[in-house]
């Protein structure tokens, strides 16, 4: 076990990424990735919400300020929202928040929004892979919560 643990942690920094996924598309997509046994980095922790529009931008700010390495908000593709328009609000909030965070010096890679449908298990896996790599490259997000 120690041996294996060593092997696994050999690659050093493993980012901790918070993922918000909407129940209807993205969470189902994540499930599909699982059902299809698509392997991906063990970096993401998914919080299920009914719609990506439930995700308060405040959550993203809090998560990053508390020191999580990244936040990924996943929703249905525009036009496919189970509630018909939710993800359009997600899109606007995302556009605004991304620029604000960048302005105060938070790397844009640490907060990302992506559209993943229920049939896109592979896309979910790829997204996790990609975002994890990007954040690995940045290194840990300096926690400020108790500095």
């Amino acid at each position, binding site marked *: 076990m120690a041996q294996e643990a060593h092997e696994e942690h050999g690659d050093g920094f493993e980012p901790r990424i918070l993922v918000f996924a909407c129940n209807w598309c993205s969470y189902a997509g994540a499930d*599909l990735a699982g*059902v*299809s*046994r698509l392997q991906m980095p063990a970096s993401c922790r998914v919080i299920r919400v009914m719609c990506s529009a439930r995700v308060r931008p405040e959550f993203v700010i809090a998560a990053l300020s508390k020191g999580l390495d990244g936040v990924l908000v996943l929703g249905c593709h525009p036009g496919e929202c189970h509630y018909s328009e939710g993800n359009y609000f997600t899109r606007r909030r995302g556009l605004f928040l991304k620029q604000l965070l960048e302005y105060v010096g938070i790397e844009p890679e640490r907060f990302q929004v992506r559209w993943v449908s229920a049939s896109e298990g592979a896309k979910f896996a790829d997204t996790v892979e990609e975002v994890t790599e990007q954040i690995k490259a940045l290194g840990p997000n300096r926690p400020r919560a108790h500095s």
Partner: protein
Amino acid sequence: MSNRAVLVIGGGIAGIQASIDLANMGLQVYLVESTPSIGGRMAQLDKTFPTNDCSMCILAPKMIECAGHENVHLFTYSEVDEVRGEAGEFKVTVRRKPRYVDLNRCTGCGDCVEKCPRRVADEFNMGLSQRKAIYLPFPQAVPRKVTIDAETCLYLTKGRCRLCEETCEAGAIDFEQQEELVELEVAAIVMATGFDPYDPTSLKEYGYGEIENVITALELERLICASGPTGGHLERPSDGKVPRTVAFIQCVGSRDVHYKPYCSSVCCMHATKEAILANEHHPDLRSFIFYTDMRAVGKQFQEYVIRAREEYSVTYVRSRPGHIAVDQDTGNPIVWYDETVFGEAGDRVRRVTSMEVDLVILCQALVPHGVHREMVEKLGLELDESGFVAIQDRLIRPVDTSVSGIFACGFCQSPQDIPDSVIQASATAARVAELLGPRK
């Protein structure tokens, strides 16, 4: 109609779905299943095409919902003994086979199974592993109660042992238990007895039973299933080594006037699925599917086949092998078949050739379940030429049998896949509801 009870025969996915829908309509449902648990064939599947959903994962909630429904009355390990009367007032006798276990006391803890000294072939795993004479068919069984198999139990056959009785702290073992006849009055009957795999032994050319490494599709299903005899490790029978090349032979006994003239409908996709799963287990495993027509006719089926070809190293060979030999040293089956190749002139020519593989999978025909014929006679139903329950008007009444008040869904009335069976199951519910008229 005053009597608002319905008899459903068969606890597979079709019977389960019909029961749930009927129960949700406020009708009393008597679900009769001959084995100790509901779940049927779907419970034996590892995954389902074309989504690769874990079969048990989507079935288990349905099983529990069905068994837990206030309007559903389960008769497992039971058989329909006699049916009299007509639509609106059928009188049914159900025979509860003795389980020799008190269902109210058994906790399904499995201690007795531990102790039981008698091992027999496990039908849930297609005989690829052994179970005890007292057993739980599979972990998610509903009800989760053990059953003593009277044919093999040492005490019941040879009069000594009773270890289970000593072990059981709940005192659930009851060797005095007698078979029980239950009289039911129902307004309608839904038949959903499903299928059995056709035994390919009679197709001598394929050497099933002679060549160790020639197995059937359902056997493979259990071999790659995590809850199967090998814990999901794909091993071939002869030497337990992981196969690197697998040949699937389609239409074994189907589409063949000498055996079953019809197309079993699901085997093309079933084989494709198993080839994909096998490759997922071992990415360097290659599959060859020998087919006549690749009947991928459902939603997302073609796409599934394309994925199999492009991402899971599955090769489709359009040929019907005539003979399977075996290499005695390696135990490798050798598949003889004819194929079309390009001659020097670039023209196509047919030639006979062979392929040595590690494992051969026979996608055998699927036939109406063993209880089928007997049931059909008891219900006074007509059969079609192929032995399926005859449907009078396929166009407008696709689930109505020749007897008014009796409906048929799923494989017992025609070969079909899970969604079609589920659809027909719900359709029978609608027909029953129409027969009985509005509630209250």
